[in-house]
């Protein structure tokens, strides 16, 4: 088994996703099923020098250095769940270090 309850909790923490303890076991089973399914790729031998697929253009097109912001019909203040004195506001960082 690759994904157990601990892995679910660890990955949920990395993804900042609350997962109810009651759901952990079910999720572990489902994720294990998915991981077992994608593990089919283990049987594929990648020939030496296999690149990765790039879709879209082969190279990056750049834009000119001009001040040309995309206009917005609503302001940051209008969209924000909490906005004070010109700032987005969030609770203190708690478990996330400052800096």
């Amino acid at each position, binding site marked *: 088994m690759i*994904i157990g309850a601990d*892995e*679910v909790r*660890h*990955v*949920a923490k*990395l*993804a*900042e*996703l*609350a*997962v109810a303890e009651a759901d952990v076991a079910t*999720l572990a089973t*489902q*994720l294990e*099923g*998915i*991981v077992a*399914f*994608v*593990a*089919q*790729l*283990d049987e*594929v031998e*990648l020939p030496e020098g*296999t*690149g*990765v*697929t790039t*879709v*879209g*253009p082969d190279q*990056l*097109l750049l*834009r000119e250095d001009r001040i040309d912001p*995309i*206009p*917005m*019909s*609503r*302001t*940051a203040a209008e*969209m*924000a*769940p*909490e906005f004070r004195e010109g700032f*987005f506001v*969030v*609770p*203190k*960082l*708690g*478990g*996330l270090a400052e800096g």
Partner: protein
Amino acid sequence: MSAADLARETGKRFAEADARGLNATLHWSQDVLDRDAALLDALPSGPLSGTAVALKDNIVTRDQPTTCASKILEGYVSPYEATVVSRLRAAGALIAGKANLDEFAMGSSTENSAFGRVKNPIDLERVPGGSSGGSAALVAAGVTVAALGSETGGSVRQPAAFCGVVGLKPSYGRVSRFGLVAFGSSLDCVSVFGKTVADAGRTLCAISGHDPRDATTRQVAPLVLAEGRTDLRGLVIGLPKEYFPDDLHPGIRAGCDATIALIRELGAEVREVSLPHTRYAVPTYYIVNPAEAAANLARFDGVRYGPRKIGPEGDLRALYRATRGEGFGPEVRRRILIGTFVLSAGYAGQYYNKAQGVRRLISDDFTRVFESGVDLLFTPTTPTPAFKAGEKTADPVQMYLADIFVAPASLAGLPAMSLPIGRDGGLPLGGQLIAPDFGEAMMLSAASVLEQSIDPMEEVR
């Protein structure tokens, strides 16, 4: 017909679809329709004048909400408009409402919407396919003749097949993604539904072309349709044997056999070919896509927009976890967890890097076949006709396998489309054409010839 008349007519049809309980639309308003129509009537006509086009609700609009069928974006109205929407307006189209979808386009049945499942207009007990099920249902129900959906791994072709309409995914880089809420960025394509091949084709022409706001669009001119063909003479159509397994649904097989016979009658050379890595497409897809999705969905954190929830600890982490934990539905949460897992320390090489390599092999399979003189591939779009609601919701992997014939072209970035090829027990069947990179014009002209020779209502067995 004036745009004002079209707006009234379209509103009436939306209301009828609502009354049937299709649940295909997340937002539409007669006011917005009328206002847009007034603007259109004041402008010279364009290639899409007189055409109402519905939008999948993961394409951002300024005057209507964009929710991606997720509670995490409930009430969100974008302050800017997607490039494809501006291009539709410029072509004279009437923007007609926002269609329901699987939450953040994650699903194959449109049962994952936070705002309820979409019903297949052909059989209300069945799913319309997904994730663009709302757009497909609106076109199938005759509410609009065209609709925009989005494809990441078949999310337009598969519902087109289930609902008996035309669905076309363009080449990656043909159409701007600016304003399409990102899901799997290296796979995402704004795609089109049409009542007919021509409806899909002209809608695609209007939205195609390079966009300076999307660095992944190619610097090519907008698509122009080829002169109409009357037959398929001179074309070589490949039949990849991996798409016709022994256990293929007999109705699908019968439909494909009839179409293949027709392709021969119309003068094309039919050739069996092999795409040996086909069976790895779905597992590859379910690594690449969740990895990209997990990163793309990190921005929904309750800081700058959207609803905010805060857990009992009251700190920032409690805000993140509650906003995201409560805002995302089960399939989205699963994909975020899988995507985070396959990129996490110690696993990236085994999963993500491996999948990128296999993706290359899948793409090379197509290149080899097209370089051998094959012009187009013909395959079934789906392994079965539309299944019943609830039939596959318990097992994510069974649901994922519904995309087995559509995922490969998405991974390779190739243009592909589904068109109706008949019915089995009253349910629509879809046949798929896959073309070389940027081969949409040839694919559409061939599809148009087939369309004229196929009765989509005919029972295939």
